[in-house]
């Protein structure tokens, strides 16, 4: 339970950090398209990587969300 809360906070922190960086020159540098990956320019491949990372973070966050203990969460959890 305590770990869940910590992991949830880490997920929130990572998601916010990643989104701030995604809209900063770190991921969208003006006029820069190097380094390339599989021929794709930097903004595109790094953007794809950000998206995959965000899906993973979101998935982990769903497993530790503070609302998991709420009755709205679902029957299966209550039985566990």
């Amino acid at each position: 339970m305590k770990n869940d809360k910590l992991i949830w906070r880490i997920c929130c922190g990572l998601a916010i950090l990643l989104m701030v960086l995604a809209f900063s020159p770190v991921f969208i540098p003006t006029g820069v398209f190097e380094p390339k990956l599989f021929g794709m320019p930097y903004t595109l491949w790094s953007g794809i990587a950000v998206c995959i990372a965000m899906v993973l973070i979101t998935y982990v966050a769903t497993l530790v969300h503070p609302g998991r203990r709420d009755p709205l969460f679902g029957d299966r959890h209550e039985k566990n």
Partner: protein
Amino acid sequence: MLQSLLIVGLIYLVILISISLWQRKKASDSKSYLLAGGSLGSVLGLFTFAATLFSTFTLLGMPDFFRTHGVGAWTFLAVSDMAMIFGVIWAGFYFRKKALQEGQGNYWGMAGFLTKCYENRLAGLVAFFGVFVFLIPYVAIQIKGVSDFLDQAFPDLLPIWGWSVIMVVVMMVYSEIGGLKAIIYNDAIQGLILLIVIWIVGLSCLNSIGGIEAGYTQLEAQNPELLSTPGPRGLFSAQFLIGSAVAILMIPFTQPQVSIRLAIMKDNRAMYRMAVGVGTFAILVILPTAFIGLYGSLKYPDMSAFEFLGQALIRDQPSTLAAFVLIGLLAAAISTADSQIFALGTEMRSILRMGDDEKMLRTTKIGIGIFAVVALLFSIVSSDQLALLARTSFAGTSLLAPMIFSAIFYKQPEKLKILPVATLIGLLLFIGSLLGVVPSEILGLRMDLLLILALGILAFALIAMAKGKE
């Protein structure tokens, strides 16, 4: 190709109508008809959420965005969508909790929810005004986009308005018959069609330019500005991208066709799974549009948007695939537009003051019909800037966000009486800036960004003042 289209189209139509007739028997009261019984599972939830979210704008607007403005289009939509799915699991929980509490287990629409929370009818009316003003043009551009495209594919077969009328009639028939559940089942089919079609076309485009690496190497020699932000026309500036991300982040709460899907999920577990699924779907559906856009940048850099789309999606494809593309496009447009029109009906019902359920349902159905006709008329006069008009719709409804989030997170929103009035002023200022009556930028800041910042700060200040008085 017309023969292929007729065969594929007929099969598609039969499936849509059959599902509606199947669901008709189950939809007898308002809850079954307008809220699909309020028990949406994660798989159906994923497809209906995705089909509602990814519209004509994805299939037509995004390839053209990649073609003319470059790779920043990925950040514009895909990265913003990732912020949105995290927002769904973070704020969605609190939204469902409050919305279901206020509605005693049922959620009838954002306007009704706000009326109850603020104990003020104006709050609901402002929300309804905002979604009506910014959703009708969005529905209209879906109809117009596909009608223009069909006119390109079959010149002289029907006038553009004829295609629009057919689309609206199909949409109205199946949603009026089967209600939201029919729309949701049809969304699932339409979402799958959209995903399959866009990948086949994307791979076909990629194949004809020799693959990703060869394509981008050639583009570097031809127009290197497309390989980075802000793109050759400077559209994807940091401010534009951030403004778009904020607007997209708010969609699940500010666009009623999406928020209703969160509220009617069976439970939070289903909503969480749906959110992760939508994130994956977003990556899968946007990636091939980058390939189609790359193909367009190399082969058709100087064509108009519809000329390029007609060429890349129809004329350069085998006729059977082209027929599926057209059905995919219809599916994308219909699945978003029907949900939006239906949501407008639900929003209207949520602020109606009638005791009788049957009477309210009848009035709502009439309202849905009227909204469809208004959208149809608007589609005949609207512009063809699909992606930009969609963004304007997101930005417009996002101005409701401070009022909505205050209702979700603050225990006594009824103390924030000024917020609905300020939101109305914000909406009017934004409409004024779109019409050119009010400046579109102040001190270098875009009007939409400035207004949402101002409304956000005001909401925080009002809450702090109300807490101070407690």
